[in-house]
């Protein structure tokens, strides 16, 4: 733990090899038909909101998860990428393969409703707290080099007061 910023730069740019263990060897397979079909959810972080009871959900749902509602196909698209949230819970994980260990992630509760599990970015693992405010940032998740695909997605960025 504790790479300096120059070493992180080298690791992120793949100029320095990183030991991430056998666990990190799994090859990424990018399904382009899934991206084509579900790109608003994957790249836009667009979930759904129930028109009947107002429950927002991530990811996209057809049936309302509110046990007192359960409406079917009463959803409208609902964008989470511009919502602020706070950290419901979190961990910093040394087992997860990462070029920037520990991998910090958690569940975010969004202002206006909805909850999502997200990787954290641009934060010091030692300063993360339950209840800390976050905003979302569009970042690289992984590179599928075999198919020349960079997989982007949304991460949670703690807002340091």
């Amino acid at each position, binding site marked *: 733990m504790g790479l300096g910023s120059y070493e992180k730069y080298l690791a992120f740019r793949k100029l320095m090899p990183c030991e991430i263990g056998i666990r990190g060897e799994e090859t990424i397979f990018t*399904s382009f038909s899934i991206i084509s079909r579900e790109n608003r959810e994957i790249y836009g972080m667009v979930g759904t909101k129930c028109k009947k009871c107002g429950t927002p959900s991530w990811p996209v749902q057809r049936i309302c998860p509110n046990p007192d509602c359960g409406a079917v196909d009463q959803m409208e698209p609902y964008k989470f990428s511009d919502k602020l949230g706070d950290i419901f819970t*979190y961990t910093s994980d040394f*087992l997860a393969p990462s070029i920037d260990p520990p991998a910090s992630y958690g*569940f975010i509760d969004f202002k206006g409703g909805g909850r999502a599990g997200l990787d954290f970015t641009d934060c010091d693992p030692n300063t993360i707290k339950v209840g800390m405010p976050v905003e979302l940032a569009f970042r690289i998740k992984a590179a599928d080099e075999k198919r020349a695909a960079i997989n982007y997605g949304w991460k949670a960025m703690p807002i340091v007061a």
Partner: protein
Amino acid sequence: MAEGIKDKVAIIGMGCTKFGERFDASPQDLMVEAFVECLADSGLEKKDIQAAWWGVHMPDISVGRGATILGTTLKLPFIPITRVENFCATGSEALRGAVYGVASGAYDICLALGMEKLKDTGYGGLPLAGGMGYKMPLNSFNLTAPGGFAMMATKYFSKYNLNPQDGKMMLAKVSAKSHRNGALNPKAHLRKEVTVEQVMNAPVIAWPLGLFDCCGVSDGSAAAIVCRADMVKKFRPDPVFVKSIQISVSSGEEMLYAKWDGAHVEPSYRAGIMAYKEAGIKNPREEVSMAEVHDCFSITEAVTMEDLQFSARGKVKDDIDAGRFNYDGAQPIQIDGGLKCFGHPIGASGLRMMYEMYKQLQGKADKRQLKDPKVGLTHNMGGFPSMCVVSVCIVGK
């Protein structure tokens, strides 16, 4: 009106391999080892088995999919075999299939066998083994098993105002207790006692969980033969009767509706309620003599005590501090050493837990024998606290 399965089915034979880094044994060796002990314990012959349920969670790294491997390995004579998989409840799901097969009246005698061979991956932790679908890497995050449960520990500490030191101390006592029990069990993988201080000072795997907060990963297999309760006296004087088997699966409410508190496992609570109702148990804290619960991580065991109503909400620390769940406490938990010391060959774990309850109720648990237990409970939880499958089985004399 459904009447449930209480006292309709009895367990008349069980087998369990030594769990561990079984580099000496192939998957088939493990299956045969569990089956041979189970069949001998039952006193039956192979031809008496009319149907089988076979549990394996990650067959893609061991024996492949389908039911054929059980039939061809054990040379079962063209009987119906069903392969089941339900995350970490896979072994209990196999038992449920066999018990329901008998309770339905379709069969008199059935076999349940679970096996998992994990250590051939060559690395620690559960295998990745794909299997989450092509979409998962596109909209998910870098979640591991310890990380998923560490998030529940973080939330539990936060909700009940435990500082990290006190929270980790509570969890360390859970692991130290199980290691003490596992040290007495020749079939356990990890057989060393550890102190609370060792647990507290171990390297962090996923904050706040350290190495000794995590169960081992092992190879192993376990099996059970069940029969109609009304024919049991012909087979043995000390059968164990199934009082209930229930499974509860997340509705998605926990994450999608966001009312879940993050500090308990809702399907554990629900499966417990269903199982107690079927078994006729009114006060689980008083009536359940002993339990093997899903201690994949120390925090899982701690919150399970609350979910199964052994401890009041937010109060498990008091019971842990008082030694309630120790071998000499009022309600011993993980008397065989638990997942903590057996490790977690996923398809086998539920049946391994039942093996201990069965031996304890028969008075055959050797150095671990409790004084006259009446009711035993097993609990498996598969997936993550936020979205999971939970089984609860209750057995008694």
